């Protein structure tokens, strides 16, 4: 199983990714998808700007994907992360995991998200509804704690 990792400006489609992992296969029992969306934070945000480190973003996502593949018996793994300006309601990140059994698919997807949050080189900046650029989003200690539970 070779993980698929993509960094792109374009939106993605969860159903297309599920179909690509399951097409023509009869050994997959479970597919979990996680999609992370841009929120408007109670009407405060006009958009999120996502900066990334080209080259390292793909490399680090592939390392995290490889760790998930080594840890759980997966039959498929896709991780897609967008960059650029993303408006509220639009998707930012997608993780898809496929396995014979549901626990592996669930755990691997949660692991991937926890690790992508803390290790993939992406940075979010807020753009406010009044047209000004807001602050860079601060990293959350709860994300470090979530990643720490897999150690």
């Amino acid at each position, binding site marked *: 199983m070779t993980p698929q990792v993509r960094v792109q400006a374009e939106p993605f489609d969860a159903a297309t990714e599920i179909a690509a992992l399951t097409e023509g296969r009869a050994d997959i029992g479970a597919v979990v998808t996680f999609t992370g969306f841009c929120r408007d934070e109670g009407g405060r945000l006009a958009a999120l700007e*996502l900066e990334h*480190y080209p080259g390292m973003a793909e490399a680090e996502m592939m390392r995290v994907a490889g760790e998930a593949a080594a840890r759980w018996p997966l039959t498929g793994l896709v991780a897609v*992360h967008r960059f650029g300006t993303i408006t509220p309601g639009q998707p930012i990140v997608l993780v898809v995991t496929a396995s014979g059994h549901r626990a592996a698919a669930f755990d691997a997807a949660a692991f991937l998200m926890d690790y992508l949050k803390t290790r*993939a080189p992406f940075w*979010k900046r807020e753009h406010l509804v009044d047209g000004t650029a807001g602050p860079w989003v601060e990293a959350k200690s709860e994300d470090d704690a979530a990643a720490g539970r897999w150690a």
Partner: protein
Amino acid sequence: MKLVYFAWVRERIGKADEEVELPAGIVTVTDLVRWLKGRGEEYAYAFENEGVVRAAIDHTHVKPDAPLDGAREIAFFPPMTGG
């Protein structure tokens, strides 16, 4: 050696990347940060809290005591907030 900066580290320093010639005695990432802080107040501001800024060598996360030997590209950036 190429240095690249991201997010508010990039904004504070005022550039996205630069080529530098390191003087002798700069062995680790921490040595490099301290040398950069002496180059101007924009660097001092970017690295004002050395524990916050993260580093990567050739696209791999590293700790402050990582050796620079053989590195082609060193990146500095805030804690990641993707996902």
